[in-house]
């Protein structure tokens, strides 16, 4: 009898010791994790407000002088405008071309539909990122689209359309068909259908795609880097890079202010999606 009690106590002690060690280890892990993710980011939120920013993180003295200097830089603000042109233009094309296509692929049954979907998915996975750089440079060269906004926009749209169509199609698949059936009864034509039936049906999907495509183009470095040759046409992503590769230490104040200004739209987009749909969803479609 006493043996068992003893063993039990020892077991319990052992258990509490192990639980304690596990607890300490766990807290240590969380602290290390948070440190690993926070430290590289700190500079972005301190340096812009520091009157003498360096590469190291310092405690800022909360001045806006760096922003004044950034405004005077001939490339900084124009590049933000360029980014808006590229992102806005691409979003427009992706929505205008993607919505009808997604709608048809969701609603209509026709031969080759599943094959179309499969080919879309396959090619959008293959022709991606850097492997797509040479092919896209070729097509731009051949069609005289180098150094043009419309060329860059349509090429960016080509890369985003397949995924957009898939996400929009998923949205549409979840919506009942009663809308369209009544529209058909009333004999709506194609344009009326698009405006009065399709658009409302997939509106939540459209909002998500718009934000996603916007952020994607806003952050895209590679395509504008190889397709737009004139520095004054460069979007913020490329100008940021040229600041720190060609500008040297002298412009660190501009870099600091510019980094945060250029990042803010992405943070706003994230907040918007997070609030409306939850970021898990956002997570699923980035990339």
């Amino acid at each position, binding site marked *: 009898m006493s043996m068992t009690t003893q063993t039990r106590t020892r077991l319990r002690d052992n258990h509490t010791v192990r639980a304690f060690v596990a607890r300490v280890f*766990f807290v240590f892990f969380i602290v290390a994790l948070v440190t690993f993710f926070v430290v590289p980011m700190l500079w972005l939120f301190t340096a812009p407000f520091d009157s003498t920013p360096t*590469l190291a993180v310092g405690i800022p003295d909360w001045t806006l002088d760096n922003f004044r200097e950034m405004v005077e830089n001939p490339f900084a603000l124009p590049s933000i405008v360029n980014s808006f042109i590229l992102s806005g233009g691409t979003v427009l094309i992706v929505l205008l071309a993607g919505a009808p296509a997604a709608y048809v692929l969701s609603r209509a049954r026709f031969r080759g539909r599943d094959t179309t979907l499969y080919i879309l998915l396959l090619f959008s996975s293959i022709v991606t990122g850097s492997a797509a750089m040479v092919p896209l440079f070729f097509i731009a060269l051949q069609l005289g689209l180098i150094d043009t906004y419309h060329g860059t926009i349509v090429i960016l749209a080509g890369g985003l359309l397949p995924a957009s169509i898939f996400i929009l199609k998923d949205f549409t698949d979840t919506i009942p068909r009663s809308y369209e059936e009544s529209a058909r009864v009333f004999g709506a034509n194609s344009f009326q259908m698009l405006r009065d039936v399709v658009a409302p049906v997939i509106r939540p999907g459209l909002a998500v795609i718009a934000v996603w495509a916007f952020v994607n183009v806003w952050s895209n470095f590679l395509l504008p880097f190889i397709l737009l040759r004139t520095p004054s046409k460069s979007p913020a992503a490329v100008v940021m890079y040229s600041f720190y590769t060609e500008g040297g230490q002298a412009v660190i104040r501009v870099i600091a202010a510019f980094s945060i200004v250029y990042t803010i739209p992405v943070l706003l987009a994230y907040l918007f999606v997070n609030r409306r749909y939850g970021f898990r969803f956002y997570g699923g479609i980035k990339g």
Partner: protein
Amino acid sequence: MTKSQQETQPLPRVKEPAGVVVSRRGALIWLLPAGIIVIAFLIAPAIWTLVLGLTNYRLTGIEAKEPQFVGLENFENALTDPAFINSIWVTILFVLGSAVFGQAVLGFIIAWSIRNLAPRVRSSIELLVILAWIIPSSVVTFLWIALLNGQEGTLNTILGIDTEWLLRYPLLSIIVFNIWRGTAFSMLLSSAALASLPPSYLQTAKLAGASNWQQLRDVVLPSIKGYLITNLLLITLWTFNDFTPFLITGGGPGGKTETVPVFIYQEALRFLELGYGSAIAAIALAINFVIAMFYLRSSRRNAAR
């Protein structure tokens, strides 16, 4: 109606003709704008790259006017070019280190270890990891250049040393950078997979006296294996095609961080060896094709379950 159609429409209220709301011709018209863009700017360029890889096309000189068909010469050159072989090795190390062992493992560990924390703590940690993922790449690359700078970088300031990280440990630096950058996706996917587990699974295991580790090994990992494989294939595909390391190291020093994307960029777009460049790009596209086929198969299997 075929079997698959019945599955997607369990309640056919009306007997449907070929199209529900649009005729076949209507369907084609609505597909046309997206179709033209995708064919012209995604599918055709990829196929054309394969063709150009068989020529000696260059941007300047005689070859620019009349490119000659050179067969598999470019591909042979690539496979015997030490710089290309080097870039393949660098890429393998980069993908294995940062995606497979880095993001996938860390992402799962984070998702697993914070799953029972208070919602507010949990979402704050997730927010940090996600922030690293959504800040534009040319900004995060500068943040890391500043962090790793030899003279006044934050890392050296904390450690009190003056190591030139990007010169002494270039590949390790971009691997750690990419873990920091991309773990969010694996974390989100892992926690979605964990959330999909029926709680009864774990309760049963716990009642049977399984330790945390045993639950993980015998219950959790086998049931979410499909998701984890999908995740691995996706992040492998993305990391293989990632151009971001270029923004930190430019491929240097001495080709130590010259991944395949950086090599393609140097050959095709900086030296304008378009024939050779497209042969390498074609090889990269072929590697993507293999990963994508595995991905499509595994995601289809997940969907079937």
